């Protein structure tokens, strides 16, 4: 079975990091055991509903446990055969083994989380990132991805708007006349229309009340 990595993310790995690519490919084989390519799932057809998606999710979950394993275990042994003769180019300083392994695992986990996010498997991407040791959560790329994937925080607010029924009616009645324009409506009355939001804001920013802004598509 050949799993194709069609995700550019993996292609960005430098040649000296080919062994990481091998590990990522292995991860892809584990998480996606069918002949579908890994990552960027949007161009392909939706998985069928007869349990295929569930099965894939379970496999991906198993991978998340897999990346949590110590580096000397399964993943290392499986990659050993396909590793290049030297992991590092000549003259390149090799990091201490433990540090190097941690960096490898972090990079693999990051790539996998990114790929899961690209294929809209947000929960699994979060779990992949959560599998990282606390000490590796400070990396800037990891921090950014964790921030974007964080569950939203919601709290009540005293802020309140007015009933816009009249404004909705205005939009229904007059949309044909304002195609492509931004409009500001309040209490069923058009206050301003403009070709850009910036221009519209210039018209309404000094008002004491807050009209509804809408672009007629």
């Amino acid at each position, binding site marked *: 079975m050949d799993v194709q990595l069609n995700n550019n993310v993996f292609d960005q790995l430098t040649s000296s990091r080919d062994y990481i690519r091998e590990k990522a490919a292995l991860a892809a084989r584990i998480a996606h055991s069918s002949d579908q390519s890994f990552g960027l799932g949007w161009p392909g057809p939706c998985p069928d509903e007869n349990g295929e998606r569930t099965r894939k999710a379970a496999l991906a979950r198993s991978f998340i446990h897999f990346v949590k394993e110590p580096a000397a275990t399964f993943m290392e042994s499986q990659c050993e055969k396909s590793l290049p003769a030297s992991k590092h180019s000549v003259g390149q300083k090799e990091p201490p083994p433990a540090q190097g392994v941690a960096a490898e695992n972090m990079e693999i986990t990051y790539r996998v989380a990114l790929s899961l996010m690209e294929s809209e498997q947000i929960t699994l991407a979060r779990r992949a990132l959560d599998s990282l040791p606390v000490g590796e959560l400070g990396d800037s790329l990891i921090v950014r991805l964790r921030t*974007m994937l964080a569950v*939203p925080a919601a709290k009540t607010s005293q802020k309140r708007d007015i009933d*816009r029924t009249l404004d909705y009616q205005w939009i229904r009645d007059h949309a044909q006349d304002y195609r492509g324009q931004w409009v500001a409506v309040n209490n069923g009355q058009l206050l301003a229309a403009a070709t850009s939001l910036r221009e519209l804001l210039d018209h309404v920013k000094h008002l004491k009340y807050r009209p*509804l802004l809408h*672009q007629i598509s």
Partner: protein
Amino acid sequence: MLKTLDGADFTTGRARFLDEDANALEGTAKIFVKIEPSNLGFPVLAQLDTGSAWSILKPEIAEAMQLMNEEGEPKRLSTRFGSIDGQLKRTNITILADDGNSIDLEATVFVPTEWTGGNFLGYGGLLERVRFAVDPQENFFYFGPSA
């Protein structure tokens, strides 16, 4: 406001929604709710779309929110308009209530580089922490924060 079977609050606010977009090319009814993106200062409409992985904000709105200079995560999103490039951004959005309480959300939204569609409230990064219900008879959108 709506209650759970054991009497606890299920939602905390409600607002009338626009249930059609007369100008929409596709022409079928949709649910448009009122939101106020942070720093914009005015309400705008966003289509409720639980089938969308991410929420989408029009680039002009993101610019007005001063969101374009914020660091984001590059992403390509598949939509019914085709694949679009943009960035995921973390920001604050308020779902506005006419009655009861609004809710402030710290959420992740997708800001396309170019986009002729509208604003969307998707499940991932936003609606996943919002309780909501729809009364299609009265056009009320009930909502509240999920614990």
